[in-house]
């Protein structure tokens, strides 16, 4: 089985917007490899005659009708925002130049 490298850890950290220190990387490489190895146990099962699937329930086609329901109040909606500006969730500027 392929192992997780230092490069993988750096890449995933970047995707997840996590700042990790250079000296932490080795520790994460080891930890993630343990997790991967554990999940890798699945590979021991013989799946020759099993159809690939992404869902295990065999349920399909669940829909709802296009009906409007009551929304929560603006006050409640904004309750979890650390900062607001003119009834908007305020966030730091994110445009990269």
């Amino acid at each position, binding site marked *: 089985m392929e192992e997780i490298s230092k490069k993988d850890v750096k890449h995933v950290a970047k*995707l997840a917007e996590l700042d990790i220190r250079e000296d932490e990387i080795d520790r994460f490489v080891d930890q993630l490899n343990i997790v991967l190895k554990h999940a890798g146990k699945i590979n021991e099962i013989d799946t020759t005659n099993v159809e690939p699937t*992404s869902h295990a329930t065999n349920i399909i086609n*669940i829909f709802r009708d*296009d009906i409007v*329901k009551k*929304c929560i109040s603006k006050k409640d909606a*904004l309750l*979890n925002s650390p900062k607001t500006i003119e009834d908007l*969730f305020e*966030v730091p500027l994110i445009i990269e130049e």
Partner: protein
Amino acid sequence: MEFEIKIGLETHVELLTDSKMFCGCSTKFGTAPNTQTCPICLGHPGTLPVINKKAFDYTIKVALALNCKIANFTQFHRKNYFYPDLPKGYQISQYDLPIGLNGYLDIKLNSKVKRIGISRVHMEEDTAKLLHFGETGRISEATGSGLDFNRCGIPLLEIVSAPDIKNVTQAKAYVMLLKKILEYLEVSDCNMEEGKFRIDANISVKKLGDEYSKTRTELKNLNSFRFLEKGLSYEIKRQSEILNKSEKLYLETRHFDSKTMTTKSMRIKEEAQDYRYFPEPDLVPIEISREWVDEIKKTVPELPSIRTDRIKKQYDISDNDVEIITSTKSMADFFESCAKIYPYPKIISNWIIRDLLYLLNQEQIQIENCKISSEHLVDMLKMIDTGSISGKIAKSIFKEMFKTGKMPGDIVQEKGLEQISDIDKLTDIIEQVLKENPEIVTQYLSGKMQVFTFLVGQVMKKTKGKANPKLVNELLKKKLK
């Protein structure tokens, strides 16, 4: 130096449903910020999405109209990326199994047909609206951002064209036809000002004979036909100039700035974006049966180019007028419902194009919201035909109908606008006019024929435009003999 251009367009369309894609929040536009949200569209932990059936049906409808192959098995994926307009940290979208695949759209340019491939049609959810605060209002000069989640979770259609488009004219024709088709399908109102129909473009320029490199530009914010034209033209020029100087192009995302009409680099993409797509575990897969597709097929109306061709053949009106009349489905519907109950299509199209369109533009309303129905117009046209009103009076009746929605017969009665076709009455008035204008009469009798219209005008003035003009002409000529 000669260049070759390759453009692929990605169009995002908000679907016309009452509720959002995965929750029951309203999709109404223009309400106060953050008043149409719930824990699902705000991305709170533990909430579960459920697919809006109507939005799904609409997507099949669009895919069919764009000649796509409809998937018999499909599912949703999570597209993972961090951006504040996406509260969950991922967008529910589609990946390897879109609802529609490999379709096409035939655009007509100078009566030649050019086929543009449609790579895929898929469903996703719209993101929140990000507003940038700063003195100039430009993204590049903003100092902070705020989020309105009313838009977050509105059903969004993504339509991706193949890179078959070779120039700006083709790009514009493609987008115009696509928008027209979506309007005909009645799945979106495609209001560009409200951001319900948005265009991104991928553009590659290469020297003639060279290979295309992978350094295409993704151009964002082309949200009107004018910006599409300006943005693409600018980008083609920019890339050509760089190639002329033998400099390097980068794979980058650029933003169109409508104030300067130029494009500005947002970020250079050093590596391919990595969205870590995986199947959405909160939504079960969907099997689209043949019967289901057949049901939706029945709801696909006659599409614009077919309808335009049919109307050209069926009615005796100019090609140019047909193009105007079929520019929207509601106008074509209006025309045809009139033509069903009135035998002169040319007269109907003249009134629509000259009078109705003028008033609609002036009042900034859509034909489907206007007070004039086909019965209004046809009743009025019949009154002209029977001579009970003059064509001139009809113009003022038309304006009145547009304003009040009253039937023409009622307006005529209320305002006393019946045409005067009584010979005795008209003869009296003509004699009066002749008596009051002896010099003009002398001029006419001595051969100055052009003063005749002046005399007709005087009769019209005395009758406030109600005199039957044909009769006035006849009687006046007789009197002047």
